[in-house]
């Protein structure tokens, strides 16, 4: 075996072998655990300062047992969900191990190679004690608006130290008391201290809410019965994913993706994945990935593992909240020193972009032989734009940012949805009326892009154009991937429109700025975010004529589009 290859088993097995708990109790424990995670989420959202948390839901809130098995998590940012066991493990290591944990402690941890994220994604971890015994952890990893990187948001870092301040696992609360020295460091190392102070507070409230809720469940049933119920819950979760995998014939499936560039150098960065199905288990092999890059598109191991966990949970387990059991049938292979297993201090600010794309490339691989099992490609990116500046009237600094929704891919089940996120499922799109109140700009249009959908028996969902005119000079960092690799169709379905981002000057000239740091947008100039459409499923000639005509009536597609993709449909107007 190649010693550079790294095999990671995504789920941990049973700890209690013999269980004797009735199914009703198990079900109530399951509901109560999900409700406890949900309470954490609500507490965080209610108290957070920055819209990136309460609107974009750029966080994960979850509960783990002492063995770092995921008990439950709240609907939030899926990509974060599968990284939290790493965060907890490293956070606890950071303070010197379990023996240094006390009731009321809260650890702050954001080292990118342990969280899998950029430093802005900071985790708060709280150990949960029951009758003096360490039984579990509650954890929330959330995106802070700024953590004193070289810019509020960057696409061109060359090492991880440019990306922000690092907290290597230190106690923010010790036995319930705030460690003021640490807190002051947090506030000193950000461009938006009020916002960060508020969000730290909100995260602390969140993990404490989870701690209390979990203790209520455990005290109701007793630790023994609780632990037995947990084993049953994991086993049931495992069965869900295994059942899905069993329906896919054994074999190796190949897929490839492509990053537009690495952020600091010209040229696309292609990568290959291999999906190996064996009976009811799956191996996601990323070891053929290119070497780690000089720019920030490297994806640290925890996020690579999370990608695998999320991709499989989404495919297999619709309608169920994932838990540790879901992850047991999954193994990930990576190679050290590559795009999906970089080594510190490789820059990783844009780690999420290869991760999000990899998810869809797994589907592409399976879809190459079993298209009915997966959807076609979505618009393929979150097209994030971060803005900042100084308000003319008051002189106060401001910053804002948002991911944007894209069209979804068609599948055997029907047309792709319009304007949703693929993996950032719960993110809410900001209202223009609130946006214009908050920031010195005018939103000039938010409109569906005609013809952006990939044609097919079941077409892709439409993308959306968002155009904003700046009323004051503004800086922006843009991260739109997949501007070259169009959203692919499946089973002879056609491609959708690719993403892009443009700077429009007041003379009307247009410049493409899909991945750019600290771009000055002068007063009166506009930024146009072109959010792509989804790929189609099945050959366009199989699409029902009535559906084509209705798409035309709705102005989703033009006459030219019909002539090109559905030439057999004749318009009579």
């Amino acid at each position, binding site marked *: 075996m190649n010693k550079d290859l790294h095999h990671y088993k995504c789920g941990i097995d049973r700890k209690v072998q013999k269980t004797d708990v*009735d*199914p*009703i109790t*198990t*079900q*109530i424990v399951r*509901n109560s655990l999900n*409700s406890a995670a949900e*309470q954490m989420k*609500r*507490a965080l959202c*209610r*108290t957070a*300062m920055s819209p990136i948390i*309460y*609107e974009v839901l750029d966080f994960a809130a979850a509960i783990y047992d002492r063995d770092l098995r995921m008990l439950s998590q709240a609907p*939030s940012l*899926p990509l974060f969900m599968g990284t939290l066991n790493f965060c907890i493990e490293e956070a606890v290591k950071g303070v010197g191990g379990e023996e240094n944990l006390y009731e009321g402690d809260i650890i702050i941890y954001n080292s990118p190679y342990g969280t899998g994220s950029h430093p802005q994604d900071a985790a708060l971890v709280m150990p949960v004690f029951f009758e003096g015994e360490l039984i579990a952890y509650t954890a929330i990893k959330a995106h802070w608006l700024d953590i004193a990187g070289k810019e509020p948001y960057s696409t061109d870092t060359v090492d991880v130290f440019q990306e922000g301040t690092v907290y290597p696992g230190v106690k923010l609360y010790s036995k319930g008391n705030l460690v003021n020295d640490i807190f002051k460091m947090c506030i000193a190392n950000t461009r938006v201290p*009020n916002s960060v102070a*508020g969000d730290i*507070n909100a995260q602390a*409230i969140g993990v404490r809410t989870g701690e209390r809720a979990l203790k209520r469940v455990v005290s109701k049933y007793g630790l023994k019965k609780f632990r037995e119920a947990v084993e049953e819950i994991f086993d*049931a979760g495992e*069965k869900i994913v295994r*059942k899905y995998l069993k329906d896919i014939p054994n074999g190796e499936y190949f897929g490839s993706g492509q990053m537009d560039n690495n952020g600091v150098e010209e040229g696309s960065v292609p990568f290959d994945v291999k999906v190996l199905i064996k009976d009811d288990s799956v191996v996601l092999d990323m070891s053929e990935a290119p070497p780690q890059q000089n720019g920030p598109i490297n994806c640290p191991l925890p996020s690579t593992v999370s990608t695998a966990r999320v991709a499989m*949970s*989404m*495919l297999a*387990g*619709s*309608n*169920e*909240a*994932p838990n540790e059991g879901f992850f047991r049938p999954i193994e990930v292979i990576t190679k050290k020193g590559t795009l999906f297993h970089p080594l510190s201090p490789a820059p990783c600010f844009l780690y999420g972009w290869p991760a999000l794309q990899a998810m869809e490339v797994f589907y592409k691989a399976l879809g190459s032989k079993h298209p009915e099992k997966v959807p076609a490609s979505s618009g393929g990116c979150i097209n994030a734009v971060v803005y900042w500046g100084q308000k003319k009237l008051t002189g106060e600094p401001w910053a804002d940012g948002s991911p944007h*929704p894209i069209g*979804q891919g068609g*599948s055997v*089940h*029907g047309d792709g*949805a319009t*304007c*949703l*996120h693929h993996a950032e*499922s*719960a*993110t*809410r*799109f900001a209202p*223009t*009326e609130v946006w*214009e*109140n908050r920031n010195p700009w*005018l939103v000039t*249009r*938010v*409109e*569906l892009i005609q013809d952006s959908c990939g044609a097919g028996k079941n077409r892709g969902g439409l993308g*959306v154009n968002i155009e904003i005119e700046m009323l004051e000079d503004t800086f922006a960092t843009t991260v739109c991937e997949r501007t070259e690799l169009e959203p692919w169709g499946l089973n002879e379905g056609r491609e959708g429109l690719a993403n892009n981002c443009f700077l429009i000057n007041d003379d009307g000239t247009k410049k493409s700025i899909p991945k750019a740091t600290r771009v000055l947008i002068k007063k009166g100039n506009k930024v146009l975010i072109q959010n792509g459409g989804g790929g189609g499923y099945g050959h366009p000639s199989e699409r029902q004529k009535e559906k084509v005509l209705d798409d035309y009536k*709705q*102005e989703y597609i033009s006459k030219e589009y019909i002539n090109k993709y559905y030439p057999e449909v004749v318009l009579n107007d």
Partner: protein
Amino acid sequence: MIRVATDVGGTFTDLVYFEIDEKTKKAKKISNAKSDTTPPNYEQGVFKAIKKSGISISEAIFFAHGTTVIINSITERKGSVTGLITTKGFRDSLEIARGDRPDFFNLRYKKPKPFIPRYLRTEVPGRMDFLGKEIEKLQLNDLKKIIKSFKSHNVKSIAICLLHSYANPKHEQVLAKKIKQQWPEFEIVTSSELTREWREYERTNTTALCAYVKPIAKNYLDNLFIELKKYKFKGNPYVMQSNGGIDTFESTKKTPLTIIESGPTSGVLGAAEIGKLIGVKDIIALDIGGTTAKCSLIEDGNVKINTNYWIEKNRTSAGYPVMLPVVDIVEIGNGGGSIAWVDDYKKLHVGPQSAGASPGPVSYGKGGNSITTTDANLYTKRINPSYFCGGEVNADIKSVDKHISTLSKKLKLTKIETARGIIRIANNNMTNALKLISVNKGHDPRDFTLVAFGGGGGMHATSLAMELNIPNVIIPINSAVFSAWGMLMSDLRRDFILTKLNKMDIDSLGSINETFKKMETKAISNFKKEKIHKNLIQFQRYASLRYLGQDHSVEVLLPSGTYDKKELNKILISFHKQYEKEFTYSLDNPVELIQFHLVAVAKIEKPKLEKRKKTGREVREAIKSKRKVDFDQLGERISDIYDFDKLEPNMVFNGPAIVEDSSTTVVVFPGQRCKVDDYANLHINTQKKK
């Protein structure tokens, strides 16, 4: 003298009337009648019920009306063809919505389909900014073309929602006026006459839904009014609103979406009124019906209202927003008819699917083969098998046994364990809903009294209270017709809401005072149109306040009058306090007012409930029988069965016991103590005797 409340439900139309003693003004007798609901001519069902009751409508001094006609037209998609006119660049707001996917691991998620299709969504140039300043003139050059297209698609109703119209409604008003003048055949709803709150998707959808139901609502209320006059009704009839008040037909017809949740609202209001009568101010109201359970928190006697209401929203769908003041209710798919089922992974679930009225629970013997919560309650003998539905139905015990057996085999449990399991899961679902309105919002359930009503209220309330450590449960008298009682206890109420950002400092006091004053003047003139004199009107002022930079606000009750520095400080102190209660902390940051909320109430005379007569009967005389009842973990116990109608004030008895009348079953657990109050409400203490 009689006071009448009618309630048009999905299946039945209920009528409840109070005979009022002319001297004491007390309700002497409460009676009810039922008829089938008669779509699409709903008013016929109302008059059938009136006929059945035998009352003469000409003697009625008060007529209040609740109806599900609006919500049904929406859920069944039976509204009118509607067109939208909005600001250039924003016609897709209705379709893009907020872009979230609540079922976040579901790649096949389908977005809720907009009520107005894209080809009927049109745009006009013209722009306000967020302060309400015109930055581009409204241009109506294309209006003729728009109307022509609407006509060719048979549009009956037009929704107008322009960007920032909450700050300045001028453009919307000009547009509406022009259409009214030139094309009077259209119904029109502008967003600014519905609400002056920001967030364009929510406001556009609210306007669209209102326009969608307006023709139907107008027609229906007009017909009802004509019929009432035919029967020589002399008073002014009212419609129950979602904000916990009633309003006139005239006002309701303009913006009928305000009655979308009239039914559930009146039950919550009834709980608050019962509380006032017997001196209980902090209440959790719980209404367990056939398909859903609804709960709402009442603090210090005040029913909570908010404008963040969504229809068809659940774990798997984002739903549709209704940005109107609606009583803050959490509703879950868990009622008597909720179906128990076992999934592929051997897990037991209850609801949200319901057996409905037909075939109904297995025990009804109408061919139902899905075990429901009601069947489990019957199997555990909490419900009396020989007095099922007040003796009107022979409970089909054999079928219940058979189908529970099927479930129990899947679960590898005994039959009684399965029945108990169903009740426990149903209770767990309801407990989680109750936590949402209490614990999750910073309220300790121990400080509240649970007032439970509806068909299943008495059956589950006592165990839910134990679970949440709620010390006292009240099962009100007439709990089966409780919503109608609430309707008769309502005042005329209108809510005026306005988003307008002001820093809470001395410099802004002028603007804040002026805004409230303007709103009050507007409210008075609004009522004046319907000849309601300003002396009858009482105002309540609220403001949504937040820490500068935060999104989340709390609504604070404000004093009346003009504010000075001292008042401002008092308001800030109460904000910090209320904020801390809800969010567990407060900050030193500056505070911002984002929304003004004025409640205008015109008081209406109400009936008073009469106390139940005491005959000196002993409590044991109210026992009609004994039977074995299963109390889950406490086992099977021989229990006294009390006749609700024979209970008298000050009677006290202990569980295990069941209290029954023809429509209600109340379960009193071993160790619980039940006391009857002056009005024959049951007070059950759930704290175990030591």
